[in-house]
């Protein structure tokens, strides 16, 4: 009798939890769906719903400012990811493996871009760039993005470096591999999951960044988020909604494919193991 009462309460709690979570998911997804819906809105500016059209998807490609800013964002995000992950990976290994003077200081510096508001980092970089006469543009944005991506990369990868010492690496060297061969064949594969998630994180941070890009953009080009921010006063046009809708669909499809491939590989591995 008491067990069924307990079960009843469990079920009730489970129900409340499910309803609560559905509400939260709904709130998180409402803006995404509204954005998608308004990409089909038959009006130059998004003030109210005026009927269905797909014109913005075809007109999208003639909006050169929009396409250019997307291209600019993607190039910066790819470069920022490559630089951050390269410096971050060897940096994480170096900081973990070697003892040197000032190591504690560098470790503390790595936390600064993570814990200090981004606007402060952006402003600090801006004044130092102006002081040394560096022209604002792609280079300055790239440095800015790397400055907040590298710490995340180092922290993520450091967590993946196993604590079992360096026995594998030493074994590899004993067997006659040199440092670079050891790095490529032994060290890198063992930390690959960390490197991948650092790359993923860096790309995500960079492509959506507004604050750093806005501060360091200079007058000429701007990334997509900076363009959207500047549209805010006049109203964001439906072709931007169309572009963002395409972007999110591409990401979701890529993710689903990734999941399918992963599952297929897992299944194959299991089958091979049973054989």
């Amino acid at each position, binding site marked *: 009798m008491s067990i069924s009462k307990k079960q009843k309460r469990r079920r009730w709690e489970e129900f409340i939890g499910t309803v609560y*979570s559905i509400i939260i998911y709904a709130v*998180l997804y409402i*803006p995404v769906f509204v954005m998608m819906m308004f990409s089909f809105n038959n009006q130059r500016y998004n003030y109210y719903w005026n009927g269905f059209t797909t014109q913005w998807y075809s007109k999208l490609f003639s909006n050169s400012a929009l396409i250019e800013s997307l291209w600019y964002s993607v190039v910066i995000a790819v470069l920022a990811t490559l630089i951050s992950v390269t410096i971050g990976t060897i940096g994480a290994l170096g900081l973990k493996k070697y003892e040197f003077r000032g190591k504690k200081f560098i470790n503390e510096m790595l936390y600064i871009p993570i814990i200090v508001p981004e606007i402060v980092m952006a402003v*600090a970089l801006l004044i130092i760039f102006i002081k040394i006469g560096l022209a604002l543009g792609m280079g300055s944005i790239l440095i800015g993005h790397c400055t907040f991506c590298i710490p995340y990369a180092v922290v993520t990868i450091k967590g993946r470096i196993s604590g079992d010492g360096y026995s594998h690496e030493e074994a590899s060297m004993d067997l006659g591999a040199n440092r670079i061969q050891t790095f490529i064949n032994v060290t890198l594969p063992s930390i690959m999951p960390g490197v991948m998630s650092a790359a993923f994180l860096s790309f995500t941070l960079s492509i959506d960044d507004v604050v750093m890009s806005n501060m360091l953009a200079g007058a000429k080009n701007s990334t997509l988020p900076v363009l959207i*921010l500047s549209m805010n006063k006049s109203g964001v046009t439906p072709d931007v909604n169309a572009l963002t809708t395409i972007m999110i669909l591409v990401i979701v499809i890529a993710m689903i494919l990734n999941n399918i491939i992963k599952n297929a590989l897992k299944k194959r591995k299991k089958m091979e193991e049973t054989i």
Partner: protein
Amino acid sequence: MKKDTFKRNTLPALAMAGPVSLWMILFVTLPMLYIIYISFMSRGVFGDVVYEFSLESYETLLDSTYFKVIVKSLRAAFLTTVLCIFIGYPFAYYIAKKPKEVASKLIMLIMIPFWTNSLMRLNSWLLLFQTSGPVNNFLQSAGFIDAPMSFVYTDGLVMLGMITNMLPFAVLPMYSSIEKLSKSFLEASADLGATRRTTFFNITLPLTFPGIFSSIILVFIPSLGIYTVTDMLGGGKVLYIGNIIKNQFGAIRNWPLGAALSVLLIVITGLLIFIYTRFAKIEDMEVV
């Protein structure tokens, strides 16, 4: 012999830790020191920085209008953090109690909206809540209100934007610390006769404090400095510290004042981190 150890230890250490160290010194340490230096300088007539020691910027900060903005930003960031924690904890708890397979899918579902441009999501709230927007239409046709309410460019809408943008950063660290919580503690507590409520307050909550503190840091600091939410949803009417700093370096061109405000932000976050390290080890900080 000495040359040999150099080749074996110093050279690889330099090659590996060198680039990251150089980057941090050039683009973190130096700019931070320089911004502190600038905050003690004075402003020239034409918006340039005059290299003369002055406390003028800090005196201006204590001026009532700026002080009001600072207090308002702190209050908003605090409110955002508290609400994100209170809304996020039960949500994180619900997900963490699911089987691993399901939980990882539910976490994915939280992440997907965050790959949509954050400004576009903010813009959606604006579209929903504008005077002739769906929310007002609904409220009017349902008879709750007679005339459209003005939600746009209010503190309330800014708060909604802040919370919806920050919630995942609160949920993820709390999720991973609840998920890590060993079942044996909960079972032991139940065996010893504790009610579920007692177990929650005496075991679950204290053991997940590191996750909660990570969430606080990850939500409070960005919400304190952010200016995009206030720019998009506040329409230039709602000003927080972030907007003021941006304006001082942009249109208004008072760099020392902007620098002083930045230093103030550093001090506030520094204090927060100090408190944080008292309660939880910094190594435990789950940033991802």
